[in-house]
């Protein structure tokens, strides 16, 4: 039954980013959307995370304008389609001109990303009935209409009355990590910068999101000290797995031979 869990998780991960900005030009930014809950009980609020990344060599604007009424960032355009790929109509507002909100100024330096901010898309569209829905958002590249738009990846949302399906599709826990080194802790706004040779660690927080007890007792490796209950994936800038220290094996051999 849990086989479907991984597939459903993948549905919430940004995998396909298309750019409608001029295909000959590198878009100055990308937009990734995801959801922690790709399968949701009918009638529940639907939240998606939006993360904007600066792909350009200069600063770009990332100012957010969350609406008080809908809790979505009005700086983006939203599109939701049903299982027949027919666009849904937005929930009509009696007085849209009275809609208020906030302005959160923000600038992204080259390579930086915004945190994955939550947006309540069920405030814009009626997603209370069972079905499968495609969600994609976009943003104009600039005030110049000829500059085109940048589109996000598409995620699939399943709305169902089947409580068991919702439970099976929801991860039983959440893992959050943050890098640290020499007393500094990383943020989500960009790469965590350290000097070559410095010791680097990660804070790992495991949060139980289920209604059953989760095992969280660590099992530390004698040599590296890392918790063996986790799998660590470390890759270089080309995406290749980083090699492990070879001297650890030597040390381990020595310890074994001494034991």
């Amino acid at each position: 039954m849990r086989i479907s869990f991984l597939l459903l998780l993948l549905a919430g991960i940004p995998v396909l980013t298309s750019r409608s900005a001029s295909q000959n030009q590198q878009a100055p930014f990308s937009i990734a959307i995801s959801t922690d809950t790709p399968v949701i009980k009918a009638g529940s609020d639907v939240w998606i995370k939006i993360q904007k990344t600066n792909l350009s060599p200069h600063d770009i604007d990332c100012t957010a304008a969350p609406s008080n009424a809908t809790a979505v960032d009005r700086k983006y355009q939203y599109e939701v389609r049903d299982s027949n790929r027919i666009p849904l109509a937005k929930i009509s507002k009696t007085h849209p001109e009275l809609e208020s909100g906030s302005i959160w100024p923000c600038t992204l330096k080259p390579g930086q990303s915004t945190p994955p901010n939550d947006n309540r898309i069920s405030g814009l569209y009626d997603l209370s009935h069972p079905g499968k829905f495609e969600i994609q958002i976009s943003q104009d590249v600039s005030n110049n209409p000829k500059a085109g738009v940048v589109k996000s990846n598409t995620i699939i949302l399943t709305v169902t009355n089947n409580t068991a399906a919702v439970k099976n599709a929801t991860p039983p826990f959440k893992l959050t990590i943050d890098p640290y080194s020499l007393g500094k802790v990383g943020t989500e706004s960009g790469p965590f910068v350290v000097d070559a040779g410095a010791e680097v660690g990660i804070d790992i927080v495991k949060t139980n999101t289920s209604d059953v007890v989760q095992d969280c007792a660590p099992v530390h490796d004698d040599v590296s000290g890392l918790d063996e209950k986790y799998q660590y994936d470390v890759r270089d800038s080309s995406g290749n797995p980083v090699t492990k220290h070879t001297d650890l094996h030597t040390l381990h051999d020595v310890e074994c031979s001494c034991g």
Partner: protein
Amino acid sequence: MSQASVATITKLYDMSRPGIYTVQVSQPASGSAAEGLVKSKAVKIKVQ
């Protein structure tokens, strides 16, 4: 309910060369990897 731990990844992985590294942590959802992994977000670390 949350549980926090720390892991000094440079004890195990060679991140001594300058570059941008990506680190992600995962754990089987229910004791068996065949039943799917819960993954953290990937964090970027720039070594200079």
